[in-house]
């Protein structure tokens, strides 16, 4: 057991060392394949996400997470401009469990968010993407590679996210 404790992290680290660093998107890190439902109740495979070669933002949130809603509301004010300028698409992945998942659609519609919403009721995508606690944001480039990630939200972070989107949408 002790040996395993040493071996596995070492192997994992070595492996990661071989993989070129993120930032240029060439490490080929993709959105994992998890079967979920979207807010309309359609079954989707998360690995199939596409946006015609334009960037995609994947944001993990929950109705009980205050900074999450603050972030998505801040982006909502800018989203139309962002879409006009870069064609970016935002997918808001709700990690609400059964207790609060029913209020996702009414909440989203009442606030007028124009995002795609995925329902990750039992945390399958959250675990597959290594999210600790929401909010967590991932940026996926036109080739489908995850190129940037940010944990948490404080006001102003949306500007940083937009700078990152601009950098990959040429």
């Amino acid at each position: 057991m002790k040996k395993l404790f040493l071996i596995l992290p070492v192997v994992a680290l070595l492996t990661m060392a071989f993989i070129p660093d993120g930032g240029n998107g060439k490490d080929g890190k993709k959105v994992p394949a998890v079967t979920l439902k979207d807010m309309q109740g359609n079954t989707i495979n998360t690995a199939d996400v596409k946006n015609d070669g334009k960037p995609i933002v994947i944001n993990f949130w929950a109705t009980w997470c205050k900074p999450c809603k603050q972030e998505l509301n801040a982006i909502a004010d800018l989203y139309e401009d962002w879409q006009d300028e870069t064609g970016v698409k935002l997918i808001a992945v709700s990690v609400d469990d059964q207790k609060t998942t029913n209020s996702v659609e009414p909440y989203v519609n009442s606030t007028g968010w124009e995002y795609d919403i995925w329902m990750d009721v039992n945390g399958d995508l959250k675990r597959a993407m290594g999210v600790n606690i929401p909010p967590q944001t991932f940026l996926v480039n036109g080739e489908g590679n995850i190129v940037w990630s940010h944990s948490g939200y404080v006001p102003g972070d949306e500007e940083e996210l937009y700078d990152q989107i601009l950098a990959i949408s040429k």
Partner: protein
Amino acid sequence: MKKLILPLMLLLTTASYAQLLGPNISGNVESTFQYLNEDTLIGAQQPSEKTVLNSYALVNYTYKGFKAGARFESYLPHVLGYPDRFSGTGLGYRYVGYKHDLVEFTAGNFYEQFGSGMIFRSYEQRQLGIDNAMDGLQLKLTPMPGLTIKGIYGKMRFDFNSRLQNSDGLVRGFDGEIDFSQFLGLLDSSKFKLRIGGSFISKYQSVSNAAYIMPKNVGAYGGRIYMKYDKFYLEAEHIIKENDPSQDNGYIFNKGHGTLINMGYSQKGLGIVLSAKSIDNMSFRVNPDLALTDLQINFLPALTKSHTYNLAATLYPYATQPVGEVAFQADVFYKIPKNTKIGGKYGTQINVNFATAYRPVRHTSSINPEDSTGITYKTGLFDKSDSLFYRDFNIEIKRKLNKNWKIGVKYFHFDFNNDANLVTKGASGIISSNIAVIDAQYKISRKHTIRWELQGLWTGKNNRDKGDWVTGLVEYTISPSFFFAVMDQWNYGNPNSSQRLHYLIGSAGYIMGSSRIMVVYGRQREGIFCIGGVCRPVPATNGLTITFTSTF
């Protein structure tokens, strides 16, 4: 276990040479370190080690359809409030599997939920110390579009002692769902959507009990339906559990039931949800002699909002009563449109929520509880009594005033039955409280923001419990890397003057992309810690906490 190491290592190593073919590694690290002081005023204890550490590292690997992963855990010793059995360092979770368009299987550990989870939910909620991962085999089949069949078979995670320790008993079951908008193209382009599903779960556990003949196999089954038309939806699930004498129900042989109905309407600017729930005798554990959150097979969602403001979330939070409850909830979300006289330039958000839960009626008139059936009462669907468990009314108004200012006000009224759902030792019966919150945010510049919260809680005249509280919070953030906050919770109105204490706590954090380190120092009140509606009592602590999280 050894069998798993070699393939994992090989795969991780291959990963580095096969980048072009698209192998993926993802995962995260999380560590919580505490240095604890003794604080006799609040009952905070210092363990003999003085320091404690919980640590986790999860690695997921996928290559084409193949997947494998593992999670290391350390409890050296565990953070206060975790199950006492958790100790040592080792593998707490590992799996291999394969996902194809039509077939997905996982061997080893997996998490799964059937329907709303009232019959079966295996999940991890680390902040609450809950992890009932299954260990065995999971199979998902999609033989034709719109039809999903899932099967599960295995043991459930119970303990961690330098390695994963599972239940003695087994949990097995299957679930099927038909989505008619995809199935045979029946409702292809219709506005009407329909899904139906059914589940079956059986547990096996050999139990000896001097007084009762305990069933070794206990089954549960049920069905669900989801309908949607344009802006309306209706969803219902009904689960029946066969007789399952347990410590939770006092070793009776009644069947149990769980019924959940949700309906909603939403359009741009307005959303409404109505929910109703009827639960009787639905505690369902692999081992019927256990308690707390141990080896729970199912998940019974509480019909209440998950509050986030400190005083509303921690003092009188409600959790589902698995033994029985009848509960209702209504939620209204409304946004007064922007650029209107009342709505202002940016619009104004108003959220109203009402939730209540009652004890179900138990009819005993024609029943002899001493007879051989072991059935001690009868009850029906939504058969509620006047005995109140919980009532929560709350309203929230939020508005962005201009480019720099945002303001929110919130009011709550709670009636909390402490006899049914014990959260405080200082009171019995119904505790009523009113809570008011003001939350203001000022954006100083593009990156600098300051935020204040002022909260007050006042308990009713008859049942004072700990009396009145006030909480103040100031938070300063610098995007994208820093945050600082100071919070003081002051129990200024405690009937016992020696308990009119300040709970002062300061925190600072640094964020580097997807990694974050946070340092917290101060006094933490004993209370209930809840996430997503599941609550766990946490002890009072006084000291330093450092948390590190990272996603890769």
